[in-house]
């Protein structure tokens, strides 16, 4: 078991390396020079060279790459931002917080809404309620996230003035008591979490509903029913367990989707997350931040793939017990 997990983790390392190398090439081979930002009319060639040297851009690409890799692997040092000279690790760690909070709650929201509505509608397949919920979910699945976000802000922030439409906290957050702070954070999170979570909830819903309907019509469920086992037991022990399984592997798909979605949501709602840091870095050609962000995104996605794999193996008896499995 442990052996298998270690092997799975080791096998992810080449994936990670190839991915990071690809990122490096994409970023560094793209046309345009980050040092043009610092141009000014009196700038001499010598000054331009100094600025290039400051960023290590005067070296050849392979040297830049191996230097970068060495720093990352041995010192966990992603270098300094071209834009503001900040330590990339610091930038990302501080940006990771909001992204994690946002993604976590969006995931919780998506799973709870998706699973409960999925079960609810599967039990009422082909009724009016099912059709209404199904179509609503279809709409959320098909809405561009930014448009949803803008419409939410328009409705709930501007029109109704119920919820704030930007940032993580109010300006006077520090002046509030602890309950007030909690309330303040929750109010700020509602719209972004909805915006990010609704399309995901729709995805989860789709899988659960289909899985549940399949499971409810399957021979083992029918056989269980014939044996007189209680409906609720059938539902929880037989159907749900089997329809949750694909969800675990869906996790590997959801995480990249979450990160992509977070980019948009963070820009629309002015949240200080990784996505926004990356958008800023793309426009400012901030190579170190781009590299650090891409590596981080990569790492997270692969990590979750491994976790999903391991869970899958633990949960699925077919894999668990097969020869050579875990």
């Amino acid at each position: 078991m442990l052996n298998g997990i270690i092997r799975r983790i080791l096998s992810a390392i080449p994936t990670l390396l190839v991915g990071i190398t690809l990122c490096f090439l994409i970023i560094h081979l793209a046309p345009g020079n980050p040092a043009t930002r610092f141009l000014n009319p009196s700038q001499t060639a010598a000054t331009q060279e100094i600025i290039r040297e400051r960023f290590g851009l005067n070296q050849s690409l392979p040297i830049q790459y191996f230097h970068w890799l060495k720093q990352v692997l041995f010192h966990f040092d992603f270098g300094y931002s071209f834009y503001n000279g900040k330590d990339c690790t610091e930038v990302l760690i501080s940006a990771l917080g909001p992204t994690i909070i946002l993604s976590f709650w969006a995931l919780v929201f998506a799973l709870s809404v998706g699973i409960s509505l999925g079960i609810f509608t599967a039990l009422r397949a082909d009724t009016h309620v099912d059709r209404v919920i199904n179509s609503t979910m279809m709409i959320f699945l098909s809405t561009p996230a930014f448009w949803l976000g803008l419409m939410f802000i328009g409705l709930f922030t501007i029109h109704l003035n119920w919820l704030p439409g930007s940032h993580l906290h109010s300006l006077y957050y520090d002046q509030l008591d602890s309950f007030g702070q909690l309330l303040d954070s929750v109010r700020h999170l509602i719209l972004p979490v909805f915006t990010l979570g609704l399309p995901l909830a729709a995805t989860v819903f789709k899988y659960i509903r289909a899985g549940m309907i399949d499971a409810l019509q399957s021979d083992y469920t029918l056989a269980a029913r014939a044996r007189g086992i209680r409906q609720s037991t059938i539902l929880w022990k037989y159907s749900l367990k089997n329809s949750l399984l694909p969800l675990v592997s869906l996790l590997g798909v959801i995480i990249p989707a979450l990160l992509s979605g977070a980019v948009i949501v963070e820009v629309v709602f002015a949240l200080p997350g990784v996505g926004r840091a990356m958008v800023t870095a793309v426009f400012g050609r901030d190579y170190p931040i781009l590299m650090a962000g891409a590596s981080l995104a990569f790492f997270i996605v692969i990590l979750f793939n491994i976790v999903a794999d391991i869970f899958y193996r633990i949960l699925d008896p077919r894999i668990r017990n097969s020869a050579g499995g875990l």
Partner: protein
Amino acid sequence: MILQICLLCLNIFSLFSCQKNHHGQFEHSDLYPKNQQIQDGGTLVIGIRAEPESINPLFALSQSSRNIIRLVFSRLADINEDLKGFTPRLAKSWEISTDNSQITFHLRTNVHWQDGTPFTSKDVVFTYQMHINPVVAWDGMAYKQNISSVEAFNDSTVVFSFYENHRSMLSDAVEGYILPAHILQNISPQNLFTSDFNRHPIGTGPFQLNSWIDMQTITLLKNKRFYESGKPHLDQIIFRIIPDNFNLLNQLKAGEVDLVESIYPKDFQAIIQNWNHGHSDIRPISYLGRRYDFIGWNMIDPESYRNSIDRGESQDAIKYNIQPNRLFGSQKVRAALTMALDREAIMNTVNFGMAVPMNGPVSPILPSYNEAANIVWEYNPQKALKFLAEQGWTDSDGDNILDKNGIPFKFEILTESGNLLWEQVATIVQAQLADIGIQVTPRFLEPALLYGKLLPAKDFDAVIIGWSVGLTPDFSPLFHSSTFYTPFHFTGYYSREYDRLDELAKTAANDDMAQKYYDKIAQLLSNDLPYTWLYYRMECSAVHGRFKDIIYDRRGLYNNPEDWWIPLDERQYIDKVFKK
């Protein structure tokens, strides 16, 4: 991104007067009735679109960084509204030696850095050393080229010595914010760009940094040690970073943000409407700013330029022997293109009235501006066609596109992607030139790409961009032949007449003489048309009405932040909620 043009020389003795500016209605200061008692306290929330890169005067480039630096740091002296005199800041007074080779500054003795260390002449000398250090690569290094040395006479006296007697000596000397020697001398210049100081600055300005939450807020608190007693009046200034324009404006409307700069003209119109009808407390503020937009024509042939560079020809040989551009090498063609554009319609469409026409190189905020000196190419498509026909461009094959020797009149016009105004201009230019049979393809490039194509390589046909100007006229980085290879001289313009006038204007004994040459320069350039000037923009800002005594003019909005205040009866929740 708008690139900065430095103030290479400053007209201290100019004959400028306020009445001379016929756009006076845009430049006014809204002073609160003086009989009111000024009350301390309150919070100002400023909404900005992007996170400032650094609060270190040596590295700040963006407008929001510069604004924060204005609040945290001080200079020796600040320029006055008349662009003539200077208001003393860290320097109490100064005198110029009789031979015009030295300026002696007498510093204030009651100034402390925000960490409590006293400010002395050592800081001024250290700052100068940082400014001229090539490793630091300060973007204002050119100001200090004429300074031969800076020496401390004693703790409160500094002597600046100059190589040549220029009219700009004083402004060159006071340019740049003074840095704390006692902190920065411990950091090697190589590591300065990544040092912690950039995010935790210590200055002598009216406000000091309290906290900086990444991509969210930067909080400045009143500097209790500020050298002007009783100031500043506000308790704190918070910069709130809101990248999405929709969100930013709504927070302004909702009163969560008090001050926003660079508002899109269309949104600004709505703010004016609401203010005029008394629907809102958001006061629109507009003044002639520093920015103008233009179309730059590439006057040389990019390919022959590239080939000459590749052949390693001497710089002079290239300059004199370069082939003119097949399209824009001719002045008549450039004039025709200028006349084919309804520049007034362009100006009004993209700026919603928040701009003034511009026809020549001198910006309207400068004392040396003289509208009459420019040659104005009015909108006249017929005449444009005539000019083009004279140059051999006619529609001989009837495909509605002009051609000459079988080559159609087609070109690409570049501009920066993400700059809404320029993208709009490009779209309109395309449509208007299509009307006279010229096929234009707009291409929107990301800044690093655009400036990479333009500034070193001169590899383009035409471009729509803008400059941000300094408070003195200086066009040599743009048009003088000595700057042919520096980045900003991208049109490849070369004229001996211009070189002569430029040098005469710089070395003129007094401003009267200089004015004569500036008029000639304006006439020459507005005739030669290396640029087609489109319009000069007005800055559109808005601030909540409760803030009083904000002086805004052509210098900008941050002229007297230490004087801003809020009357007690207009205070809001945000002004009271913060515990001291």
